[in-house]
């Protein structure tokens, strides 16, 4: 059984919480006592139906306001797959939460209200999904029950969305007409929409092919932790522990260690359960090298003819996550794989309007939830890949040193 992580994006009233509630309910992942609590709260709030949306609103502030503020993680399993849902609020002021939820997602569901069709937020959500390079996109055209399960209504939204998607880099698109409230096309194909010949939502989630989504070409191993037991049993043991970020690593492989540039071979790949013949993402292993080199946390082990060029200049799309603005001249801390440094914000090339995709080159700063293209200069070289090649070695976070807060996230573009 494998694992699929997916993110859901939607705003108030488009039925996202109901959809998640429905998925959990119909896969029997909701416990009776949780359902009892929801029914109790529904009654107290004056609803005349069991408000499945309450299952996902965790914090008191959210229940008070009837909205989702933060990313909530939900879990369910079917006999085929285990699923982790990152339930993200869709309102523009929560862009940072959607970016957070999408960063680890294999698939994203964007909800569209069948009565309203594509609206500004549908475009924004889709753009963010493509910006974060979520490999699979599902557009769930919801509330089909409220448009009489009309094929024309669905087709018109489908055509409009498909036309819009060609302008973006949508790798794999599936559009499904559903009713989260009535349960149509959620688990089983709906009898009320015989004209729809595609899969139900759950069938798609269970079967979507995710094997080729990870980069298995470019070997990348950021050294996370040096294991040195210095015990009587292992007096001279020195292993480099970390999580494979790309490629397939095998014993005997010629490798280069960045930033030193020294080359050696993989002497062995070890785990507490014994040695392994190969390591691939996202395995956590310990590498032993044939030569005694000075390797430490923040170094990167790659193949000699396929390694990033260490660089202090970083071009990136940055999503800003703090109330204090980002502007040129500012200094921040950066964390990229296991390597930390400081960066100077050199230039802000443009701020992107996430609704119209217009590039505002006159912008002088990025505010909370803004996205823009930025050039940074780092204190030490980083080993960067383009984010579109590798989400692990192409992504970074920015930290404000006086407060230690995570204030931005970046996706590397245009590595020479």
């Amino acid at each position, binding site marked *: 059984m494998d694992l699929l992580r997916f993110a859901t994006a939607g705003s108030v009233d488009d039925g996202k919480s109901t959809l998640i509630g429905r998925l959990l309910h119909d896969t029997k992942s909701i416990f009776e006592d949780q359902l009892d609590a929801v029914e109790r709260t529904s009654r107290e709030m004056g609803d005349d139906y069991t408000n499945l949306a309450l299952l996902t609103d965790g914090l008191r502030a959210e229940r008070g306001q009837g909205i989702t503020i933060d990313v909530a993680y939900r879990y369910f399993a079917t006999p085929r797959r285990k699923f982790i849902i990152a339930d993200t609020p869709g309102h523009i002021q929560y862009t940072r939460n959607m970016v957070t939820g999408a960063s680890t997602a294999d698939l994203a569901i964007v909800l569209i209200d069948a009565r309203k069709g594509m609206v500004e937020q549908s475009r924004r959500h889709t753009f963010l999904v493509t910006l974060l390079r979520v490999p699979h996109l599902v557009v769930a055209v919801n509330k089909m029950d409220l448009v009489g399960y009309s094929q024309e209504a669905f087709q018109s939204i489908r055509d409009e969305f498909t036309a819009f998607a060609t302008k973006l880099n949508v790798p794999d698109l599936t559009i499904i007409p559903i009713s989260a409230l009535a349960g149509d096309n959620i688990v089983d194909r709906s009898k009320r929409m015989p004209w729809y010949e595609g899969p139900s939502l759950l069938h798609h989630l269970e079967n979507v092919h995710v094997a080729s989504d990870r980069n298995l070409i470019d070997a990348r191993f950021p050294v996370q932790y040096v294991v040195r037991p210095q015990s009587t049993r292992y007096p001279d043991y020195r292993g480099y522990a970390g999580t494979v970020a790309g490629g*397939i690593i095998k014993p005997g492989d010629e490798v280069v260690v960045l930033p030193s540039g020294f080359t050696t071979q993989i002497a062995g790949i070890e785990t507490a359960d014994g040695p392994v013949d190969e390591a691939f993402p996202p395995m956590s292993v310990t590498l032993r090298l044939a030569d005694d080199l000075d390797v430490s946390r923040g170094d990167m082990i790659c193949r000699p003819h396929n390694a990033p060029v260490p660089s202090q200049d970083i071009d990136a799309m940055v999503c800003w996550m703090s109330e204090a603005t980002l502007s040129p001249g500012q200094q921040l801390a950066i964390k990229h794989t296991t390597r930390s440094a400081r960066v100077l914000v050199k230039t802000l090339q443009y701020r992107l309007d996430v609704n119209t995709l217009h590039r505002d080159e006159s912008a002088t700063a990025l505010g909370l939830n803004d996205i823009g293209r930025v050039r940074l200069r780092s204190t030490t070289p980083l080993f960067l890949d383009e984010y579109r090649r590798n989400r692990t070695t192409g992504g970074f976070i920015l930290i404000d040193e006086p407060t230690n807060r995570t204030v931005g996230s970046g996706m590397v573009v245009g590595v020479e």
Partner: protein
Amino acid sequence: MTGPPNYRLSQMKTLEAESVHIFREVLAELERPVLMFSGGKDSIVMLRLAEKAFWPSRIPFPVLHVDTGLNFAEVMEFRDRRVSELGVRLVVASVPEAIERGLVVEEAGGSRNRIQTPVLLEAVRQHRFTALFGGARRDEEKSRAKERVFSFRDEFGQWDPKNQRPELWSLYNGRIRAGESIRVFPLSNWTELDVWQYIGAEGLEVPDLYFARAREVFERDGMLYAANAMSVPPPGVEPFSARVRYRTMGDANLTAAVRSEADTVEKIVAEIAATRLSERGATRGDDRVSEAAMEDRKREGYF
């Protein structure tokens, strides 16, 4: 172990790899970490993952137990045995002793859930722990569903749900100032079923209370509680023998048993997969206080 065809990792191995990554990240970035070890199933899995993360080194940090004085004797015996097998140092923060010293005052109703927080925070200060590994899972409870893997706490140990650090990809921000700390939850993405499947796959030993046996119990508010020294039936309530097991290991006076025939790990996995009651809802009298009971305790510095 060889790579499966098409280089997909099973969900169990994916979760394990993610947890191991988290353990290593903390050791690389934070000083004086400690692992909360209660002898319960989640902390047993945590210890196994910590072993794997640093192998062939020993687990490079101590374990901490906040002892309410109301733990099941079997669990305490298990805790001590496991700690000595692994050769890790055990730090105990004692609630009864804190009551004696006047640090905390026993609450009406006998729950020591809330008063264990000041005892925990005192131990954190005394030992200057900066990172505390906890076994909490996001599937356990609503407010947990929104907590970060690296959960920042101020110098009072407080959690501010509206001011959490964004967590993207596998990049965790462990930066703190003096007096502040990070609660780290390597099992964030595990479910109760995952934990039991892992216990089965790894052949981990757990306290016998998890297995169904004939035990002396009595009924209170529709739940079955053990009849023992710490949990005495109210006058007029007769204890009886029933085949029960425990799904969680909280305080003996507040943790209910469930009727069960599951006397092996395999049977427990089957039972959990089919159960219609959540872990906490079925067994924890203390969570029934209010919808937001956990959220409130966490804000005060509870795990």
